[in-house]
């Protein structure tokens, strides 16, 4: 498992760069991960990321766009604005979680 430096922190990642250890993440790191992919975090971004983090513990997997929109009440359209082009993967990356495995 590769180790990479994000800011000052050393983290374990998979071949693509997604964090592999849930506990290596904190919000400061989340902000740095977002910066790596050109996203500046706002309260709206944090709401999504925090939902993903708690959802992962409860469900054992990363929430898909549909689950975020249905359960957190954040419209899909807004998710595309906050995390442009590839929202599901970008949200997961910033939240330090694996890519969602579901199709929808």
């Amino acid at each position: 498992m590769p180790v990479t430096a994000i800011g000052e922190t050393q983290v374990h990642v998979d071949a693509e760069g997604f964090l592999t250890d849930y506990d290596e993440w904190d919000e400061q790191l989340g902000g740095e991960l977002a910066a790596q992919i050109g996203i500046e975090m706002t309260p709206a971004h944090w709401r999504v990321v925090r939902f993903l983090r708690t959802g992962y513990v409860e469900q054992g997997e990363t929430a898909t766009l549909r689950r975020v929109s249905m359960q957190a009440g954040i419209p899909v359209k807004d998710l595309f604005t906050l995390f442009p082009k590839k929202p599901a993967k970008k949200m997961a990356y910033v939240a330090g979680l694996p890519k969602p495995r579901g199709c929808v």
Partner: protein
Amino acid sequence: MTTVATAPAIVPAFDDKDDAGRKLAIICSKGNLDMAYPGLILANAALGEGVETHLFFTFWGFDIITKAHMGDLKFTMLGNTATHLPQGLGGLPGMTAMATHRMRKQIAEIGVPTVPELLEQIVASGGHLWACRMSADMMHLDEGDLHEAVEGIISAADFIEKTESAQLLFI
């Protein structure tokens, strides 16, 4: 002088440059429940990957975007050997309703939305819905009969023009 080599951080390549320009055209020509999902699921997946996606609904596929039918698509065992049941069963009264009910349940159980809900999600994700002119004329339908998000009833030639350089799926 000592130089410390710092390896660049491993960051996913999201490849979302504006000039990436990948485009997908999906032609939905079937109106069975089981034949509606593949196109819609793939459209949804493509949109989630930042791919500009256009769907063209034609012939029986028109049912997917027709208000009167989109929530009532059916699945039949008839002519479908992949159910691995005797074909004769499929023709018994009530079999199509039962098979449809079961398939809807299986789809809902894995958290996949209904056809109208999936259309909503596709539109919210920036997908484009187009209706086929010939099908509309044949079935005597106009914009008022179709899902509000359908951008227009267009000819096959118009669709080909709109999807220049797109990758294409015919379902």
